[in-house]
């Protein structure tokens, strides 16, 4: 019997091209398949069209549809995958409202290999619990 290793998939949602590039690279180095979109609206549309991801990396401040509203919509649609919020915003009330929208975890930008390691560990821990 052979076991097929299935790569995990991540959706990077960020209006900042540098953040998208770096975050995509961080995941790809860990063997993840990554798609990147530029705002929350595009992220929601992907899920509406039937795309599925193991993890969504959601920026908070984006045009068209921001991270808070996109997360709220995804959860209202029944999306249960791991959603990790990222932002460089330091206002604690704003961060709280982002977490309250339905995040599984929150990290301050910029991300680096150590933070991504914790994100992936947290994801696997949650996966094992389910």
């Amino acid at each position, binding site marked *: 019997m052979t076991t097929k290793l299935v790569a995990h998939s991540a959706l990077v949602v960020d209006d900042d*091209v540098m953040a998208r590039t*770096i975050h995509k*690279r961080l995941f790809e*180095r860990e063997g993840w398949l990554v798609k990147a979109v530029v705002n929350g609206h595009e992220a929601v549309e992907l899920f509406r069209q039937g795309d599925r991801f193991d993890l969504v990396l959601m920026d908070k401040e984006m045009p068209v549809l921001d991270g808070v509203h996109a997360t709220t919509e995804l959860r209202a649609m029944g999306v249960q995958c791991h959603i990790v919020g990222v932002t460089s915003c330091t206002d604690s009330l704003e961060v709280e409202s982002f977490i309250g929208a339905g995040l599984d975890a929150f990290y301050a*930008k910029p991300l*680096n*290999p150590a933070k991504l390691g914790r994100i992936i560990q947290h994801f696997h821990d949650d996966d094992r619990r389910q």
Partner: protein
Amino acid sequence: MDVPRLQRQFIDFRASLFREGILDDQFIQLEKLSDDSNPGFVFEVISLFFDDSEMLLNNLAQALQQRPIVDFKKVANHAHQIKGSSASIGAQRVKNVCVAFRSYCNEENLDGCLRCLQQINHEYALVKNKLEMLLRLEQQILAAGGAIPPVD
């Protein structure tokens, strides 16, 4: 071309960027993402940073020139984007000026914002110049048949 001399120059110059606070640990984290599968990753990110920053600085300057009323929320938003972009690459001094910028925007202090804009432009020009020099040193080493010294 003396490869060991170029390599020493590269190491010393790179160290000076951290010593002077021009770059922080985030740049080192980005360097770690370059490997055999993607050797040009740092160059790619630096190029993106230059293009992104020039556009954002232009947007910021235009927002501050709006008359009769400056939209300080718009200005704060542009400063926030520059902060994010500079933090992503580890351009510490640019990022720090953006933090100060936000306070002036909250106070709707136009003079303070204009001073900050001048400072951001100065710090951005400095980090751009230094990064271009770093990339030139890398290219000289490679052109001379040497290898880029490993980073800690």
